[in-house]
Structures are given as C-alpha cells and as structure tokens.
C-alpha cells in the first residue's frame, strides 16, 4: 500500500519521526542523563545536554558498588542456561523430528503449553524445591530454574528448525554407513546452526530480562544478578540515580549488540509464526 504518494511526503516523514522519537527518545534521555554529574541530575529546568560530559557515574559504579559481581553472576547464569538448554533441546528436537514413537506430539504440545505458563506459578514450588535441595541462594539453583523456563520454548523452536531440514542428506549418510551420532553432529547440527543461534539469543534475552526468580532465589548481595542488584539501588531512604542510570546503560549494551547482529534473521524467524514475549 502506498500512502506515501497519497499524503504529502512531509507528513509521512513527520509520522515516522514521531514514532522513532517516541521509541528511542526515552532511551537517549537515559543515556544523556547518565553522562552528567550527580549535581546536574537535579537541575530545574533540566539541561537537555549535560553542561559537562563525564563518566564519573560509570567509574563510581565500578569502584564503589558490587556491580561487576552482579554482571559476572548474570554472565555465569546466562552461559550455564544456554549450554544446558541448547544441548538438551537440540537432542530433543532431533529425536522429535527424526524418530517415530508414541507420545511425540503430546510432548511437543506440552512444551508449548509449559512455555506459556506464568513464571509466578512455578516460582512457589521451585523455590521450595530449591530450599529442600540446598540450592536456594546458589547460582546453580537459578540456572536450574531458568532451564525450566527456557527449555520448553527452545525445544519448540529447535523442532521447527529441524523440520525444515530435508531428511535426504541424512538418509544418504545413513546408507553410507554413518552412525546416528555422526550424522547428528556432522550433518544435522551444522544445518540447524541458525536454529542454535536463535535459541541462544532467545535464552540470552530471557536471562538478561529475568527478575522474579532472581529476586526470590537469591538473598546475599554478592550472589545477585544485575536486575535485582540494580533495583536494590532504589532504597527506602535514597535512590542512587548515578548508579542506576549508568548501570542500566551498561547492561543494555550487550543486548543491543546482539540485537543489531541478529536483527535480520530474528525478524524473519519470528515473523514466521515464531513467538517471544
């Protein structure tokens, strides 16, 4: 449809500009705010561009707080979740698409259903489980919980990718006498690599966003992941904006890099009936 020709180009570009500003304006404001000294935060009227650009908030964040520890914890949990979920879901998806046994469809449908369950429903029994297993306040416990939340969708997504790979290659290799595992690792997984990447990105975004389990499972300050760590800078008495703003910007950077790198294929993959939320 071509309303560009219809309405005036100026009006069209104005509409686009409004949408773009609405989307990124707040983010740019956060970035600009983080680059000014604490004194300038509370200027009335606010200065649009900082009078003096400074990285002092970032320096203080790294020097005065446990932020690096929060980041490391998050990275650790992300890697642990990605490693387990990708491996297990790849095997499962291969099994679901290349073998015939009863209960296959039930398992697939259950995966989708499990993905849509509210996290707040699972957090009660999983918390009890973690306490009994001695995994509360341990990053391993958090990884297990994140696997529970990620794995169903990973299976669902990997299965879709495996289904799109023609089986003829494998049959040829099979005839040539290659074993199952060799076929899987030498033929199927390389072809399903886009799926593995999508799954990895999905888990990364998930862990980078997750707040509820991190809040409930972790109690000691040094074990926190950054979502809870950053939010703890909002205290009853004071809000440490200098840490909050700089920290929020820093944790956004990896997310944005991954978004830029994978944007095209993500949009394609999700457009084809993919889901995430």
């Amino acid at each position, binding site marked *: *449809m071509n309303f560009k020709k219809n309405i005036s180009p100026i009006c069209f570009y104005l509409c686009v500009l409004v949408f773009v500003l*609405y*989307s990124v304006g707040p983010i740019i404001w956060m970035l600009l705010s983080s680059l000014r000294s604490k004194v300038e935060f509370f200027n009335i009227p606010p200065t649009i561009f900082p009078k003096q650009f400074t990285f002092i908030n970032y320096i203080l964040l790294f020097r005065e707080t446990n932020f690096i520890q929060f980041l490391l914890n998050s990275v650790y949990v992300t890697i642990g979740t990605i490693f387990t979920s990708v491996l297990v879901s790849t095997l499962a998806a291969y099994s679901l698409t290349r073998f015939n046994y009863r209960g296959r469809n039930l398992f697939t449908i259950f995966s989708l259903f499990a993905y849509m369950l*509210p996290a707040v429903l699972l957090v*009660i029994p*999983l918390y009890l489980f973690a306490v009994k297993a001695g995994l509360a306040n341990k990053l391993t416990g958090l990884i297990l919980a994140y696997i529970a939340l990620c794995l169903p969708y990973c299976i669902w997504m990997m299965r879709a990718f495996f289904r799109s790979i023609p089986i003829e290659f494998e049959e040829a290799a099979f005839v040539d006498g290659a074993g199952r595992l060799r076929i899987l690792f030498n033929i199927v997984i390389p072809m399903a690599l886009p799926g593995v990447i999508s799954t990895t990105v999905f888990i990364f975004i998930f862990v980078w966003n997750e707040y509820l389990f991190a809040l409930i499972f972790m109690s000691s300050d040094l074990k926190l992941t950054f979502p809870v760590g950053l939010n703890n800078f*909002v205290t009853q008495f004071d809000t440490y904006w200098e840490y909050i703003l700089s920290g929020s910007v820093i*944790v956004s950077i990896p997310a944005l890099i991954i978004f830029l790198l994978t944007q095209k294929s993500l949009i394609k993959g999700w457009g084809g*009936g993919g889901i995430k939320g």
Partner: protein
Amino acid sequence: MLQKKDNIMGFCFLFPALILLSLLIIYPLINAAYLSFRSQLIYELKGHFIGLANYIETLQDKEFWNALSLSIIWTVASVIAQVLLGVSAALLLNEDFKWRTLARALVLLPFFMPTISVTLMWRWLLNENYGIFNYILMQLNIINNPISWLAESRFAFFSLICIGIWRFSPFVIINILARLQTIPLELYEAAEIDGASKWSQFRYITLPEIKGVLLVVILLRGIFMFKKVDMFLILTGGGPGNSTQTLPVLIYKSAFKAMRLGKGAADAMVTLLIITIFIILYMRITGKSQEEVG
C-alpha cells in the same frame, strides 16, 4: 526409512529433556496443586492439609476480585493499544523510504532493552521532581504541578499501561511487518487501477491478508501481558494501596510477602485455570497452520 528404525535410540535423545521437564515443570505443577490444599508458611518445611480453605478464602477475598479486574483491564487495554500502534507503525515502516532500515531498527529498540533498564529508566523519566516528563508537561501548560506518576493511585496503573505499550508494541510491529512484506504488490496495483481509495485498499486487501497473523499476535500478547509481573514488582510493588495489584502480583504477595505459600499456590491455580483457556485457544488457532507450514 530412517524414521521408522531404532526408536529406542530416539527416545534416548529425548531423555534428558524429558527428565528436566518432569523434574522442573511437571513435578512443580503437581506440587503447586498439592500445596494449594495446605496451609504452609514459607519458613515451614511441612504444612498441614486444610482442604479447600485456601480456595474459599481466595474466592471470598475482595483483593482477589480487584486483582482479577485489574488484570483484565491491564491485558485488554494494553493489547488493544499495542495492536493499534504496532499495526500503524508497521504500515509506515513497510513503505519504501530513505533511512528505512535505520528507522525500523530504532522503532524495535524498546523491545530489546533489558527489562530492568527500561523500567528504571521510566522511573527516572516519571520522577516527580526531577523527571523530564513532568517538566515537559508543565512547559506545555498541560499540568500546573508535578505529578507523582507512580506513587499516586489515580495515575500509577495508567502509567504502567503506557510503559507496557511502549515496551511491547515492537512485538506487533515485527510480526505484522513480516506479514505485510509477503502481500503481492499486484493486488494494490490492480486496486489502484480500479480507483479504490487508500482506505478501501487497507480494508479489502491489507486487513484480510494480515487477519490471521493479527489474531495470533493478539492472543500471544494477551497471554504474555496477563502473566507480566516484573514491571509491577520493580515500579510499584502492586501499590499504592492495591491499585496496581494484578493477579500475578497478588500471587507473589500472598506467597512471599504474607509468606503463605499455600494461599499463593491457590491463587496461582485459579490464575492457571484462566490462562489455560487462552493457551488452548491459541493452540487451536495456530495448530492448523503449524501442521501446514512446518
């Protein structure tokens, strides 16, 4: 040929996933159901059976009905707005223009920022005294005095809905845009020749084409918005009063603030019942197309 053989081996490949899902989802679900019939405080390792008492309490509780209606308003309002905004943006971004790739990427940004960053960012923007938002509104003479957007019960829920719309509209844009790109241009050219107006082109070509995807997107967004809890916990904690206490927030508070795991589990089971209806609806609708496509 390959498919029929060695099914035992196939099952071995599935085994790790089966174990993990049973241990981490099926068992917890059963456990939650079991808990909902018990009275168990968070620091107790064992509770005791109290039958339906939790459920009766939940259904007689004004807070529960308040939470349910807030959940419905939150879901319906934010999904409608996300769809309207998302579809309009997708239509704009589907046009051919200079800087289109950049504009597309920028419009999708809110969806890809970490939750904690954007929620704390909005806390900063909406700050009563130093927030840019109040400042702009006052400059434009829309308001006379700064408003405490997140701490006043008149505004807190509304603010959260607006933040939710801002963050999640890109999901609609992504999906609609992908679908728009597959509509053959010839359809519009033919309509153009027949002298059809822009509106009737949208009404009779675009809308029927995107209808399927739109329905799926609406259901998905509905499910995801309904279960949203992090934004609430970070920004208002369900308050002030219980003006932003949706069902997931209520569950969290019953279980971890009031420390009554049993009551929280009962609240959760009722919520599960509601959301399952929509999940089944979603599966019914997509089930057919999934079979065809993949």
